């Protein structure tokens, strides 16, 4: 691939083990534009949605890859397709609804009509009107379809890629991610609904946040106090070979009051032994999986997070909205065979997650504060050494920022910012 000469060509990461991140990458409009091209339209797989959202032929939903509007559809033969939601004629949005069912999609502007696969079915006045006008004789509808993405699915998750020859999805996800997706996506899904949230922060600040177990036991007093997640619990921090994906989890009940009290000394009351809920039902749960994991976060570069927090299950799609703004699109699900009681657990525990959740609301505030405070600091960098420097490898605990370094490794390589490049 060749790229035009850019002032970014001389920009390099300050060190090779990614313990520093230049604040410039969260602010620079040129870097943002390069991300849209090289990451989201590059050799990556982007999460588009769930197969359960488009179960029947002709079902569709709109989604987003980077800053590009995309439509995911179910074809007549059950195939899953994706195309850019921009008319091949003059560029108008073709599909205007968030969800629906249609055996063709017609642009409102000049009535160009496309199949659910994104192929051009027909245009008005192709041969003109009463001998006047019309397209040139060499006009070929087959050459004017919507821009299609490669699509691959895994366990009901739909991914799309703009790359001409994307890697095999399984290879892209890697062993750790697939193993933990296998743990969650065991049965047909039932979608329970959506949360959306716009945060005044660069999209990568969110991606850093969700692969950083160091903050999770400290920022989130609710999690620490009630033991859904604590730094003192046993857990693992696992990376993909390229560094960009991660699996972070902790196991409930693997620490004790003494060690918790000891290690939470010196925090700002983040663990409150005497704090109790008046309605403890909020935290009672009926584990879906019998391994004690109360909090599991899978992140797949560049736009997917999958979480299990107690009984809540969700995907979170990261939708960049410019250098300083990001939308999070949360899709909650259970399983088709959930009992009403299980569904009630999931719905009640939504009080913990999402934009209004006791745990998740705080992430929005933390990364907003970063974006706000780094204005004018393009020449300085963040400090990422919890868990040590040097090799970027898995950890048998959750007191580390190594996944954050892994993210920057993959990011810098794809962006042409790696120090060795």
């Amino acid at each position, binding site marked *: 691939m060749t790229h035009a000469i850019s002032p970014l060509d001389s920009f390099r990461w300050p060190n090779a083990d990614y313990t520093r991140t230049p604040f410039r990458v969260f602010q620079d409009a040129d870097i943002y534009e390069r991300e849209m091209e090289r990451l989201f339209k590059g050799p990556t797989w982007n999460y588009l949605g769930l197969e359960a959202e488009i179960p029947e032929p002709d079902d569709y939903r709109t989604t987003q890859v980077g800053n590009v509007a995309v439509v995911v559809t179910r074809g007549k033969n059950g195939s899953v397709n994706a195309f850019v939601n921009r008319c091949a004629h003059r560029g108008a949005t073709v599909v205007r609804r968030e969800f629906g069912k249609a055996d063709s999609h017609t642009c409102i502007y000049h009535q160009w009509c496309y199949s659910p696969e994104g192929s051009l079915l027909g245009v008005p006045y192709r041969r003109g009107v009463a001998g006047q006008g019309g397209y040139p004789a060499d006009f070929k509808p087959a050459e004017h379809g919507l821009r299609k993405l490669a699509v691959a699915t895994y366990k009901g998750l739909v991914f799309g890629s703009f790359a001409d020859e994307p890697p095999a999805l399984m290879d892209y996800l890697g062993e750790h991610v697939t193993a933990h997706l296998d743990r969650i996506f065991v049965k047909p899904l039932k979608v329970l*609904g959506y949360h959306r949230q*716009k945060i005044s922060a660069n999209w990568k600040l969110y991606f850093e946040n969700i692969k950083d177990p160091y903050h999770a036991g400290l920022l989130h007093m609710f999690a620490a106090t009630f033991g859904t997640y604590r730094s003192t619990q046993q857990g693992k921090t696992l990376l993909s070979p390229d560094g960009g994906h991660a699996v972070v989890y902790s196991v409930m009940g693997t620490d004790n009051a003494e060690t918790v009290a000891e290690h939470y000394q010196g925090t700002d009351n983040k663990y409150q032994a005497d704090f109790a809920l*008046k*309605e403890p039902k909020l935290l009672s749960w009926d584990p879906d999986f019998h391994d004690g994991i109360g909090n599991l976060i899978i992140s797949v570069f560049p736009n997917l997070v999958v979480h299990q927090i107690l009984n809540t299950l969700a995907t979170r799609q990261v939708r960049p909205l410019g250098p300083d703004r990001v939308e999070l699109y949360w899709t*909650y699900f259970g399983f088709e065979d959930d009992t009403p009681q299980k569904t009630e657990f999931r719905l009640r525990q939504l009080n913990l997650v999402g934009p209004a959740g*006791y745990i998740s609301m*705080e992430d929005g505030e933390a990364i*907003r504060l970063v974006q706000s405070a780094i204005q004018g600091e393009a020449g300085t960098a963040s400090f990422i050494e919890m868990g040590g420097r040097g090799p970027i490898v898995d950890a048998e605990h959750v007191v580390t920022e190594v996944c954050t370094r892994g993210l920057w490794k993959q990011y810098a390589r794809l962006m042409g910012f790696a120090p060795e490049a």
Partner: protein
Amino acid sequence: MDDSVRLQQIQALYLEYTHAIDEDELERWPGFFTERCLYQVIPRENDARGHPASLIWCDRRAMLEDRVVALRNANIYNLHWDRHLMSPPWLKAGAAPGSFVGRAQFAVCQTDPGGNTRLFAAGVYRDLIVFDGEQPRFKERVVVLDSFNVQELLATPI
């Protein structure tokens, strides 16, 4: 008590509710509900499509009290003031004797510590009001959020 008195009391309940939140008297908020109740903030898109997932979902006054304690003592969120603007409630007799169903449209402006005000939320209250003795309370308050693409985060009640 005749209905006109009851309707006046319910209108007062609506006003007190919004003023209590806007004056940061959150501790009063759970008291506007019955012991067993429903307080639900649901994105309009979920409501329209029959999806139950909500932003906040509490089925007991105790859960509302927990939320206030968490907001006061535990949670980190954006520092702000709220200002509710609300239509007069549209009230009708409910199915159960002595109950009323109510609707009111609202907008909530949020102001940051620097004095910058923005429209934060808009939507409708779908309510069921009952009389707890002489006192009207919300048995159900379903907040259907038109502005379901939440700006930053949603901490304090609507």
